[in-house]
């Protein structure tokens, strides 16, 4: 096994609003190897984006707060890093791509200058010619002709804009790229183009990536490992084979797969998960999925299920491992 790049241990994140405290992430642990692509899958409100923002320490100030846990990048503790330190890390070591390419580019700055800006901020070499050369290289990497670097964002289509955003994210060759739904806003044919490009880039640059998405199809086509999140916890994680072809699954994962209309099979009715995500303002003593789970046992409501690990595959459910024996 290669070296660990990112280790998250028992992360808790809380948002404080006028009305209530929202527990967005509740005890998330995760580790990632160098050069690996991890798919972070879950529905709205599962805490995917919050996790990514915590890694970058970009949680909305005064509202969002890491209450517990540690995040280590290459052994360096990020939760205790100061703001200037974090600023040096952002963009250079870890960068983030946001969902909407329309709003993540500054509309009044030429795209070449936007890429150059990241380079200027993080590299010691401030020679204008070198930076220009590097901008051309990066644009070529994401498949944009260098003649277009003096164009403004509005002159690009959605797919091209997302390429520019990815170019900015990759400009300093970060060790970790956080991609928050990078293709959700794009059309299928354009999405396919961008996914293909990202795959190629990953192989070329050996950048580790956390791909946040709700689309299991995208995950299957791009990731090495998959983590399924529910109510601020990882309820199942494993190599892509474990999740898509493994035998045992968390009931939520099963429900998630059952909700997608299958293109290859004829189905009359979908089998969605009944109910909704639990109230994030309440602390749940046991398994967060208990209320919607058809296998729910008494002990599920009392204590958080143990991890059940087989090889690379972890399921946090009482139906398996120690929990199963206890019930029997």
């Amino acid at each position, binding site marked *: 096994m290669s070296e660990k790049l990112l280790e998250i241990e028992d992360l808790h994140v809380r948002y404080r609003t006028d009305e209530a405290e929202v527990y967005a992430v509740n005890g998330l642990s995760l580790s990632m190897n160098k050069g690996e692509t991890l798919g972070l899958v879950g529905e709205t409100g599962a805490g995917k984006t919050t996790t990514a923002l915590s890694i970058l320490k970009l949680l909305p100030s005064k509202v969002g707060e890491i209450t517990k846990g540690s995040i280590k990048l290459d052994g360096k503790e990020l939760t205790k890093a100061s703001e200037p330190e974090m600023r040096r890390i952002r963009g250079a070591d870890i960068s983030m791509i946001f969902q909407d390419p329309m709003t993540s580019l500054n509309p009044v700055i030429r795209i070449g200058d936007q890429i150059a800006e990241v380079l200027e901020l993080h590299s010691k070499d401030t020679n204008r010619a070198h930076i220009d050369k590097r901008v051309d290289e990066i644009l070529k990497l994401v498949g944009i002709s260098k003649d277009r670097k003096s164009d403004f964002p509005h002159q690009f289509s959605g797919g*091209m804009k997302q390429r520019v955003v990815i170019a900015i994210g990759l400009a300093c060759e970060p060790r970790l790229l956080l991609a928050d739904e990078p293709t959700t806003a794009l059309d299928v044919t354009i999405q*396919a183009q961008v996914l293909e490009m990202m795959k190629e880039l990953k192989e070329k640059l050996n950048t580790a990536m956390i791909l946040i998405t709700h689309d299991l199809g995208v995950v299957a086509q791009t990731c090495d490992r998959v983590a399924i999140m529910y109510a601020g916890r990882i309820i199942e994680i494993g190599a892509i084979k474990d999740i*898509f072809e493994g035998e045992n699954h968390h009931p939520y994962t099963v429900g998630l797969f059952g909700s*997608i*209309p299958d293109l*290859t099979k004829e189905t009359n*009715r*979908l089998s969605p998960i009944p109910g909704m995500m639990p109230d994030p303002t309440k602390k749940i003593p046991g398994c967060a999925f208990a209320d919607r789970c058809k296998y729910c046992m008494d002990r599920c409501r009392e204590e958080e299920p143990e991890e059940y690990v087989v090889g690379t595959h972890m399921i946090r459910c009482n139906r398996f491992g120690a929990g199963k024996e206890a019930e029997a």
Partner: protein
Amino acid sequence: MSPTGSVPLIQVKNLKKYFRTPKGALHAVDDVSFLIKQGRTLGVVGESGCGKSTLGRTILRLTEATSGEVIYGGEDLLKFNKHQMKEMRKRMQIIFQDPYASLNPRMTVSEIIAEPIKVCRTLTDKNEINNKVNELMKTVGLAERFVNTYPHELDGGRRQRIGVARALATDPEFIVCDEPVSALDVSIQAQILNLMMDLQEERKLTYMFITHDLSVVKHISDDIAVMYLGQCVEKATSKELFRNPKHPYTQALLDAIPLPSLKEEDKLKKVIKGEVSSPINPKPGCRFSVRCPHAKKECRERNVPLVDQGDGHCVACVLYQ
């Protein structure tokens, strides 16, 4: 009433909608014809900017068509006057994509659902309206305790249920569904899709289901029309289209979907190059020819009509003329 599936409920003939822009005419919908039978679902698929939403709005006369006919119950809707149209609106409704933007934030759930009833005066008695609202909420699976909440207090799935209830309020027979599940999470999306299919069965509804999501459209539709830059490029029954996609664009669309499977045959296939060109003053000829791997000289020279290949499978491509 005649048995479902045999009688055409709505027939669109050569519908065109051009928008005037400073750069020229934007061909949002360009000569589209189709027919939806009673109790069936027509899926309209295409990428953003292909005119599928405009098509739905033009049929409902939310935007006025440039030319063409929309025959509904033997009469041309586009020739109706204001009063006739108002009567007609009871029978045809729309469900919108964005459950956040499509509900008035200053009205409570019950007010939103009651509004079409009040406007169309299908019921006038206050108690009757209240009963109807409660009944509708039950139909779409909204708990009664939400009557007085405001939409922003609810999640996307529940909001979309309000949108469905509002569309059902006047007991319509035809509903245009404009990407009703695109903004929802997969598990909620499945709940809403099931709800819509149940409603269709119970109330013998006819849907025109607009979406960009091929797996959703396959699931819900009986027939599918694929649109590209304002034109319908392929039309077939759902089964036929997925089993035997003929138009190169349909094939490209199907190949581009990332499937949640690791099998070798499900891997992303060769990705189609290029992007959708501008719908403003399009050049004559097949509009997909710029991106098409099979494009010939002929494609750019003449307009390619939809040609029936037998069994109602229509394709607009020189390969099948």
